[in-house]
């Protein structure tokens, strides 16, 4: 985009070399404004449709703001919450389509071969192997080393109740000998915290005394501020990926951003698990539609 802008300016200068100075400045200003607006729109589109964080699998009615440590604040659809799970569970919505499992498993034969031990893994993005290639995932490595089939029903951003829903649905499909839950507490914590704090999404989350301190981006703060202060912008992010200097700049900018953000742009709230989990789970059992809070 910047290259195009420079070329446009050069062409414009060549074409208008005999015109007045006023027209010249006006033309350059127009090109720069147009370039800036184009960058802004491109940036916005990238943030909204950032492929790693937004996919058809994330079903929701509205966009939420999510703080990503690499690219700053993005807009994306909410992660599947408990109320959505309840919806899927009670209405029989197609989970495969809804969540788009990373692995499109072929349904295995009902008859097991001699010595075959089927292993199904449940879990979240850790087990799913987000941002790691299929070959590098521990599940793939295990499949090679053990020589036994491994099936992954793990989906990023989900908590333990999703694991239960998945194994309820798929046990009879895979008929596993072993079911393993890869438990990584983040999503459970965050699910509760989200419900409790009305945060939309926990932006910063750290221990504080007996509980955890949340820092939510205040709704009143404009998107404009958070848009320009976040580290780094998406275009910069992609451009810098291949360069060492780019990475250094990203780290520096991130450091600066956090200092500013922590001071001016976050609203602290407090979440006390021992107290607040109880509040969240009052009058709730574990079956069917009672996932709904």
């Amino acid at each position, binding site marked *: 985009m910047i290259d195009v802008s420079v070329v446009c300016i050069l062409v414009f200068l060549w074409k208008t070399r005999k015109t007045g100075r006023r027209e010249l400045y006006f033309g350059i200003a127009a090109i720069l404004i147009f370039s800036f607006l184009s960058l802004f729109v491109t940036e916005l589109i990238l943030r909204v449709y950032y492929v790693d964080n937004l996919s058809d699998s994330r079903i929701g009615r509205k966009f939420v703001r999510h703080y990503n440590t690499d690219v700053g604040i993005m807009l994306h659809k909410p992660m599947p919450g408990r109320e959505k799970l309840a919806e899927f569970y009670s209405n029989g919505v197609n989970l495969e389509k809804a969540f788009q499992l990373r692995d499109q498993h072929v349904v295995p034969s009902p008859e097991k071969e001699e010595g075959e031990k089927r292993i199904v893994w449940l879990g979240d993005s850790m087990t799913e192997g987000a941002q790691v290639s299929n070959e590098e995932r521990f599940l793939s*490595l295990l499949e090679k080393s053990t020589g036994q089939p491994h099936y992954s029903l793990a989906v990023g951003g989900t908590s333990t109740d999703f694991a239960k829903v998945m194994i309820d649905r798929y046990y009879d499909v895979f008929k596993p000998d072993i079911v393993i839950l890869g438990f990584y507490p983040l999503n459970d914590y965050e699910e509760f915290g989200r419900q409790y704090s009305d945060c939309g999404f926990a932006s910063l989350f750290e221990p504080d005394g007996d509980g955890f301190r949340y820092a939510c981006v205040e709704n009143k703060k404009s998107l404009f501020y958070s848009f320009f202060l976040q580290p780094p912008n998406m275009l910069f992010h992609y451009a810098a990926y291949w360069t060492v200097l780019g990475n250094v700049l990203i780290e520096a900018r991130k450091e600066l951003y956090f200092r500013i953000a922590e001071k001016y742009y976050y609203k602290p709230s407090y979440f006390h698990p021992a107290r607040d989990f109880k509040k969240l789970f009052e009058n709730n059992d574990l079956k069917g539609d009672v996932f709904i809070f």
Partner: protein
Amino acid sequence: MYLSSEKAVCSMVSEINKDVTAKGGLFAVVMIPYVLGDRKYSSEPFDVYPPQYCGNAFVDCMSRNEIPFLNLHEAFDDASLDVNDKNTVFLFDRHFNAGGHEKAAELLFAFERNC
């Protein structure tokens, strides 16, 4: 201490265990190490994960329900430095990293065999 002592996770895990064992399978749980997804600035409370907060209670929960359990955090203690070093190198390789997965696979191999 907090997480699994509450109704939420421990109960859910117990339910899965009951369902799976009733159908003739074996259910196991692995606590995934934070080093797999370590980041310097993270919204994720890596530092308060096991054993300080939820680890002990989670182990108790597994023990009460007789669920085979592996806390990969402990196994990762020695490896974490190497893994973190790798983490700092690649911009897109922070959430998970191949080095961490290799280590996890190595440790899980024995666990799966014992299951």
